[in-house]
């Protein structure tokens, strides 16, 4: 117990925990929209595709500053998104195939570049490998500041365009018929989701980042039928599992933070899918059983509770 207390007073832990909490919060909010727009996989594509950008930024600009590397990630993530969209638009290749194609090509390219760069002197200190699985312990004060600024901007945009995002996510044809351009809104929302992914790369890494985006949102959807509750819950789940994951990885030697966070958020989703009232598996089994018993007892039509 005292070790946990000491942990929470530790400066490094505070920095890392604050960073990952911010990340959990932001990705929870934007992940809700990604899930509702049925673009869960796009997040995975973007995060994997950002790897070559990270390496290229280091090679071309020679900097190992996180901002520079993340800028590279942003460029290559957006490039991949555009590529996927234009493949779908201009060929007969379907979205899922285009996504898998672009994602694996970009990620493979990233790995090759990474191997190549490792041979350059001085490159080992650049710590590019941390972007694969993430390494929260490398978070610095200024990284946190960057995350805070991005987070505030993203949250402000979500609040500002709440009505529009809700409308276009539910019914984009209707949105267009009353003068809200789905093209512009979708572009903005996609850009925001990409940004949320990019700022999480250092902590969670390109492979697991999409879990941070999708899992809290899926868990939150189980508990509520209201959008704002879902978004709030999702942010909460993301934040809580980030703190818990960071704490666990600090207490257990050599346990990486990113995967620890993802395991924590996965526990939340499993519990939610099983036990949530209404949508949970157990609740549905219980209801079916109850209906069957009622049917037997009444010897006829199960009454209103069937639906």
């Amino acid at each position, binding site marked *: 117990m005292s070790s946990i207390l000491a942990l929470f007073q530790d400066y490094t832990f505070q920095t890392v925990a604050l960073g990952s909490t911010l990340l959990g919060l932001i990705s929870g909010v934007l992940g809700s929209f990604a899930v509702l727009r049925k673009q869960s996989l796009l997040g995975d594509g973007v995060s994997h595709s950002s790897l070559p950008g990270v390496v290229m930024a280091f090679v071309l600009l020679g900097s190992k500053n996180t901002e520079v590397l993340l800028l590279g990630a942003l460029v290559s993530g957006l490039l991949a998104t555009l590529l996927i969209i234009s493949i779908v638009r201009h060929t007969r290749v379907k979205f899922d195939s285009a996504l898998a194609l672009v994602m694996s090509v970009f990620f493979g390219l990233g790995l090759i570049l990474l191997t190549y760069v490792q041979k350059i002197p001085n490159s080992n200190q650049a710590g590019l490998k941390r972007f694969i699985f993430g390494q929260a312990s490398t978070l610095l004060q200024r990284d946190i500041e960057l995350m805070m600024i991005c987070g505030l901007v993203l949250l402000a945009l979500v609040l500002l365009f709440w009505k529009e995002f*809700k409308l276009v996510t*539910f019914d984009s044809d*209707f949105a267009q018929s*009353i003068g*809200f351009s789905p093209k512009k809104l979708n572009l903005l929302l996609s850009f925001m989701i990409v940004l949320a992914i990019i700022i999480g790369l250092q902590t969670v890494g390109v492979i697991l980042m999409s879990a941070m985006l999708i899992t809290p949102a899926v868990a939150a959807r189980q508990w509520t039928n*209201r959008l704002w*509750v879902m978004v709030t819950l999702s942010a909460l789940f993301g934040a809580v599992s980030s703190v818990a994951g960071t704490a666990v990885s600090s207490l257990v030697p050599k346990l990486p933070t990113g995967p620890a966070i993802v395991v924590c958020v996965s526990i939340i989703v499993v519990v939610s899918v099983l036990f949530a009232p209404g949508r949970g598996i157990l609740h549905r089994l219980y209801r079916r059983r109850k209906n069957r018993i009622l049917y037997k007892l009444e010897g006829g039509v199960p009454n209103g509770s069937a639906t």
Partner: protein
Amino acid sequence: MKTQRSYAVEVEDLTVAYDAKPVLWDIDLKIPKGKLMAVVGPNGAGKTTLIKAMLGLLKPVTGAVRFLDGDSDVRTLKNRIGYVPQSGSVDWDFPATVLDVVLMGCYGKLGWIRRPRKADVELSRQMLAKVGMEEYSSRQISQLSGGQQQRVFLARALAQEAEVYFMDEPFKGVDAQTERAIVTLLKELKEQEKTVVVVHHDLQTVPDYFDWVTLINLRVVASGPVEEVFHEENLKKTYHSSGTLLRSVG
């Protein structure tokens, strides 16, 4: 026959194509104000496409659409046009209540960023009452039946307080009771001198429900008052069929 008339919608030389295949060919259409018009035609005739192209949801190859004699600029025009999409076009598992969806009808008037106010909520509740669903306002939309979904979409369109309405198969999959309720609503809209364009499938009910009809199959076969153009000969031309399509020609 030619009198000075005011039109709700005028379509000129409209051609729409998906890939290279034309779906609508050289459509010319004039819909007078205050009419209840059915758009009738076989599957794949381009009915939904016509509505979407008129609303500007699809980009036509050529052609122009003019609303309300062109006496409205584009920005306010959007608020004078109501739309009821096919209820199957959205995911009803979206986390929203019935009232949330109906409120979306007010979004056009609100414009960007501004949030709905009390008056909008009040209006939405009234419109829900009009479609007989006031007690469902806080119900989750995934729990609605097909007919109820249709009514919610109608209430949303009513909340738009538009002058011209486009409805894509509002009678699809609804029971007799809901169908009657929708018809009553349509007649009410007509009494308020609104124009309503409805994609419709049941030929038998056209003369009862509507006073204007457009028969299309890629092109416009005929368009005009029901009693003038809705007869066996035009229907055969529309459906390329030799059998009898109407049990009794109204």
